[in-house]
């Protein structure tokens, strides 16, 4: 186990549309401006439950300024609530993911009371209102006489929800003009249109920006990893659903054929009791193997994670269940060959034999890794094609384009 880096000192820089030109080309940015042209000064309101932390806030922190720069009159509001509200929404979140839910007295009333409190506090009336996730879903009560366009953006997997919670939320969802999901697998059969907008990464953030080779080397060496031998890496929380022990088992098989190293890097072991237990299980599985590197990194390790991904020969994502899997997106963006499980949103990103390789077992994962280590030219091609796939579909600019398209579609059909 290796020491964590220190927290960052400088604030993040402000990003503008033109900053993406070197990565995407001027024509792609011109296209965004052309699409935004009919939407000048149109009002948009985004509402979610937190301004910092978590993937939704991360996306909105980029998306809102970009849409503003494109000429839309956009505002972003965050709902407030007490601990009791967020305990309930956390229980809902787990239940919507298919987990058990024990209905506690007044849960639904408390949820609605906080939504009503926020409705009374906030201002509505934008032409396009996008409500993110279940926490503020009942704000649709603020919609007067079916005016404006209201869309519910669901960032979670709704394919197997707990029926009690879903039965409570569904009537609110059905009052929207449409719902947006991150993957076809996450949708439900709803009586309103269901749109697909992929989650995204920002190529200009610390986690995804290009790094100097010297910096990459320094990070790798700091963690005692040998940059001269193949490095297999899985970046994820120490969570059983990410199957880190399965990764170690796959590594053991690969090691019979190749002299290589395994890096399992992620967070969650410090503040999550289960994370600590899983980390211990992985440590047991790894034994005293000096070529297995377990890195428990703090949340401000974006640059280190970037460097570890850049230094890797192959990136693994052997999850048993997965959301969209943005760590896969990050790896593909860095032109890395990926071997991943065919779960959640991963097959959308890893098109088997085109942008990476899919596997369904420990043995399959090991075989695909061996295949790539034996065929570096194929690995490089998968990496190149994976990069293009991300460039087209899973960057913040694609996300911006999807929202512009959605607004134009709603406008033209009103």
């Amino acid at each position, binding site marked *: 186990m290796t020491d964590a880096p220190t927290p960052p000192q400088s604030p993040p820089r402000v990003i503008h549309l033109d900053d993406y030109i070197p990565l995407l080309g001027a*024509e792609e940015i*011109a296209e965004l401006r052309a*699409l935004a042209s009919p939407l000048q000064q149109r009002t948009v309101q985004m509402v979610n439950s937190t301004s910092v932390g978590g993937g939704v806030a991360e996306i909105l922190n980029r998306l809102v300024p970009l849409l503003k720069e494109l000429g839309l009159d956009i505002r972003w509001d965050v709902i407030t609530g007490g601990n009791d509200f967020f305990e309930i929404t956390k229980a809902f979140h787990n239940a919507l993911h298919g987990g058990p839910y024990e209905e506690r007295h007044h849960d639904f009333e408390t949820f609605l009371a906080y939504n009503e409190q926020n409705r009374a506090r906030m201002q509505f009336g934008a032409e396009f209102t996008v409500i993110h996730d279940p926490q503020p879903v009942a704000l649709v009560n603020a919609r007067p006489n079916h005016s404006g366009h209201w869309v519910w953006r669901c960032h979670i997997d709704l394919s197997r929800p707990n029926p009690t919670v879903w039965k409570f939320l569904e009537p609110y969802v059905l009052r929207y003009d449409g719902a947006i*999901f991150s993957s076809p*697998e996450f*949708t439900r059969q709803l009586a309103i249109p269901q*749109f*697909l907008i992929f989650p995204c990464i920002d190529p200009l953030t610390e986690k995804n920006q290009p790094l100097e080779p010297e910096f990459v080397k320094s990070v790798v060496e700091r963690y005692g990893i040998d940059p001269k031998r193949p490095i297999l890496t899985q970046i994820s929380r120490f969570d059983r659903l990410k199957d880190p022990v399965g990764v170690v088992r796959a590594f053991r098989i690969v090691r019979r054929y190749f002299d290589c190293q395994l890096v399992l890097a992620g967070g969650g072991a410090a503040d999550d009791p289960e994370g600590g237990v899983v980390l211990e299980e992985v440590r047991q599985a790894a034994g005293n193997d000096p070529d297995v590197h377990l890195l428990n990194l703090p949340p401000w390790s974006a640059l280190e994670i970037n460097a570890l991904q850049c230094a890797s020969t192959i990136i693994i994502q052997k999850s048993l269940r997965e959301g969209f899997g943005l760590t896969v997106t990050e790896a593909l963006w860095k032109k890395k060959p990926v071997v991943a499980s065919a779960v959640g949103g991963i097959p959308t990103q890893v098109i088997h*034999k085109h942008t990476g390789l899919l596997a369904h077992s420990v043995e399959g994962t090991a075989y695909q890794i061996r295949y790539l280590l034996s065929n570096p030219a194929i690995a490089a091609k998968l990496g190149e094609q994976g990069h293009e*796939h991300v460039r087209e579909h899973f960057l913040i600019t694609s996300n911006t384009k999807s929202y512009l398209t959605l607004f134009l579609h709603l406008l033209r059909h009103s």
Partner: protein
Amino acid sequence: MKTAEKPFQFFTASYLTQVGIEKGLNLAGLLQGLEKCSEASIFYHTFQSLDRHHFLTEGFSNDFAQWVLAACNRPGLAEALGGLDIRDYLSVADLRGDLRRIVGEYCDAHTQESQQAAFEPFYFCASIEVTAPLGFEAKTLEEFRHGVARLSHASLYYHFISSRLRIHLRSNDFSIWLSEGLGMSALAQRLDQIDIYTNTLEGVRARMLALIDRS
């Protein structure tokens, strides 16, 4: 240099995906979906698939073929589906007819295999198309070349590939204009012959520019 009376207006298109209610859990389910799904869905999984995966040049032609191969492990059927060339179709209805015929014949001949569960379901989706003018046009071949060189991938796809369904001709926006606007039928034909399955969109553009330069 010849000047066209009617300039070529460069547009771009953006696509929003709508997830449908049909879902294929096996080959028989795929066949059912092919019969029931909207034309927009057939368009999405064939014409639009080529745009979404334009950077792939080997072994990827449409979503149906890819799913049959990756999720059902039926390479023969995948090749038959992948062999369909969207340039041969002037209507989505005709394309749907051939897709149904190929999958239907396979299911009839392989009743058991057609019921075997796929690794992952096939979700029928559809495209919502939104277009916007790019604000520049061409009256001469030089201006046209300049325009093509600065188009986004989406715009290239819109004018060169999806235009076939819009104009209901075995051609594309560029070739029609070169032929009718500038009277350059030979160049128009050569452009139309560029293989969209073995080239990336960037490759298509490079080939186009080379042909224009040569003319």
